[in-house]
């Protein structure tokens, strides 16, 4: 504890900066919260002058608190990315689009060519040549409804 006592309150700031640096160097995104908490603990210690046990507890609690606060803030931001909202969710991108049936939907199952691949359809029985709109995507299955015209 000699080094610890010698550095005094600065140990928290040093630890915080080291942790933030480590976060950049190493993947994982959990040292970020520790680093933030360490910096905050340093500030509180400067202000109040706590015993080290208390500082440790404050540090632990603040670590979890930092994460919780971040999650609250992130909730308000939109879930899907603004650019490329259908990344890795190709089927979802077809919702709302209209297609022309090449073969009839028989007993609720059919197929349609989209972007040089074949997708399976589920929907009402329709003859070939009718227009359909995708209402929702269920994995690799597209649910369709007939459109007028």
């Amino acid at each position: 504890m000699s080094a610890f006592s010698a550095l005094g309150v600065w140990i928290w700031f040093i630890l915080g900066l080291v942790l933030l640096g480590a976060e950049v160097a190493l993947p994982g995104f959990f040292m970020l919260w520790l680093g933030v908490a360490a910096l905050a603990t340093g500030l509180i210690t400067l202000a109040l002058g706590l015993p080290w046990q208390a500082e440790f507890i404050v540090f632990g609690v603040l670590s979890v608190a930092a994460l919780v606060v971040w999650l609250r803030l992130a909730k308000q931001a939109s879930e899907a990315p603004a650019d490329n909202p259908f990344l890795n969710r190709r089927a979802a991108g077809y919702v709302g689009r209209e297609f022309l049936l090449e073969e009839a939907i028989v007993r609720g199952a059919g197929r349609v060519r989209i972007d040089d691949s074949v997708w399976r359809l589920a929907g009402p029985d329709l003859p070939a040549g009718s227009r359909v709109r995708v209402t929702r995507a269920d994995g690799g299955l597209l649910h369709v409804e007939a459109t007028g015209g």
Partner: protein
Amino acid sequence: MPMLSGFDLFVLIFVVLIVLTLFAGVKTVPQGYEWTVVRFNKYTRTLSPGLSVIVPFIDRIGSKVNMMEQVMDVPSQEVITKDNATITVDGVAFYQVFDAARSSYEVANLTSAILNLTTTNIRTVMGSMDLDQLLSHRDEINERLLHVVDAAAANWGLKVNRIEIKDIVPPADLVEAMGRQMKAERVKRALVLEAEGQRQSEILRAEGAKQSQILEAEGRREAAFRDAEARERLAEAEAVATRMVSEAVAQGDLNALNYFIADKYVKALESLASAPNQRVLVLPVEATAILGSLAGVSELFTSAQAARDSRAAAPARSTGPTVGGGGSLVPSS
């Protein structure tokens, strides 16, 4: 270093545990992946890309599923076609997982399952076609494969986007035979074309000959017609001339005609006599008649005969040229 009290130790361990808890609870999923979460080893939910928190101690990450489209090589295999040709086929499949949970827990070994499904279906589809069909209908093969495999793989939470047959290799002797067949086809086409050309040219030549002959015949026909016409015209002219002469004779004196004829004969004799090559005179019988027709000459003859008759003795009668008869050409009335 002073002895740590129980509380001090607790604090230290508490901080360590907080760190461990954060480490266990904070999960950041990279884009292109989805992680399944299991609670006491039972699947509960799937984590999307980005930052998410799971309950530490009871939740774990089950499997990390790649949600990107993936390429899978279908290794080459031997397939027997409908017409019993053994060919070597390899292909490639593109698939994308759309349901991380199903792809993790519905099927034990996803890649091996897709691979086996694809290979068996390649056999099925190709076994139902002839070699020629296979080589020329790859699109159709791909389409049929895709339909079957995609429908089957849907239960495993993945979408097969395309299956392509890369290479169809018939056995070497078959390839050689195909090459020969192609060559023969080309040769046949060349020969046919040549024959066609010859036929055409011969037809054209014959056509030309026919045309020329027709034209020639037409020319001859035309000429014959003209000739006949000319002859007709000539005959007509002669007839007219004769008629005119006969009319003249009928109207005029017969002696005038005699004179003309005699004159012509004499002229003819003259020209015969003055011919440079021969001095032989062939006189037609009428020539004597001509001579006879001249009255003066006739009288001379008669007087000469009379003198000879009186001079000659009865036994001796020399033969001399006799100029017979004092007949005129045209009997005088």
